[in-house]
């Protein structure tokens, strides 16, 4: 049963992604990207990664969509029809995809408990983290304790990104204010 849900959800995701490529109306594309995030959150629940599903539903489907809608409100809604030839990109994509699929052929199968990824580090987290760290949720233990520096680095990245956005968009507000002041000054000089 789980396998069927898995196949159907992933097929939906492919259809959504293709529709996003084909559509020219960016508003529709942003809505589809919200649906895409929601589908991926469902996939995460199906694959036992509930914390990731929460984050993806809140951040991926929520905040990203709001950010993109804000961008569309400030810029243009429609994409121009392309003038250039899209055969070369298609060929590049097909060749890269074929190489990657060839690379998957000797990967451990989905859900295989003997896969190398489950042999090292993870058993320690699963067996010892409730005793060593405390919380019953192992993801929390690893995130906040064993890999706490990762999380610190993450907050640094977010802080830097926040500064970047402020610098990029804050300059607009300043310039607009300057323009308004200059216009007011001009108007005042015109009167006198």
């Amino acid at each position, binding site marked *: 049963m789980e396998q069927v849900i898995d196949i159907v959800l992933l097929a939906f995701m492919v259809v959504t992604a293709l529709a996003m490529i084909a559509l020219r109306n960016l508003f529709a594309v*942003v809505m589809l990207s919200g649906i895409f995030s929601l589908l991926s959150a469902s996939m995460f629940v199906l694959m*036992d990664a509930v914390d990731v599903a929460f*984050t993806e539903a809140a951040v991926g489907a929520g905040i990203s969509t709001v950010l993109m809608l804000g961008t569309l409100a400030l810029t243009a809604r429609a994409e121009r029809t392309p003038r250039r030839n899209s055969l070369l990109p298609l060929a590049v994509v097909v060749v890269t995809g074929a190489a990657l699929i060839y690379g998957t052929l000797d990967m451990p199968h989905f859900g295989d408990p003997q896969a190398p990824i489950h042999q090292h580090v993870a058993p320690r987290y699963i067996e010892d983290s409730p005793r060593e760290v405390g919380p019953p949720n192992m993801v929390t233990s690893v995130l906040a304790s064993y890999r706490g520096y990762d999380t610190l680095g993450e907050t640094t990245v977010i802080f830097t990104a926040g500064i970047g956005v402020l610098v990029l968009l804050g300059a607009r507000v300043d310039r607009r204010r300057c323009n308004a002041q200059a216009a007011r000054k001009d108007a005042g000089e015109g009167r006198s």
Partner: protein
Amino acid sequence: MFETVLGLYNYWIVIVLMMAGFYTVIARGNLAKKVIGLNIFQTSVFLMYITMGAVEGGTAPIVSEEATVYSNPLPSVLILTAIVVGVATTAVGLALVVRIREAFGTLEEDEVLALEHRMDRGA
């Protein structure tokens, strides 16, 4: 054969999604659409990690009496971090898009390049 297809199906779909995002980035001229393509690419990588972490018959990695097999918590942690960082970088990308639109009046890559070229020759 059938077992191989079922066992690798997730990875193949991940690759298809990844290539869909890649195609959007390299074939489309609209900068906002490029950012959306990067997002698709990103989500496909998340799916790949979580697929690797799943264990047949496992439960979510939260201690409980009934559970015998847990899925791997490590990919979940890495992807939690990646999702948040991904949104931060998307925000910076979109801010750049807004600025470019303000400076050039267009979001199409070739028009922006043509304008820049003209400016360079004018200067």
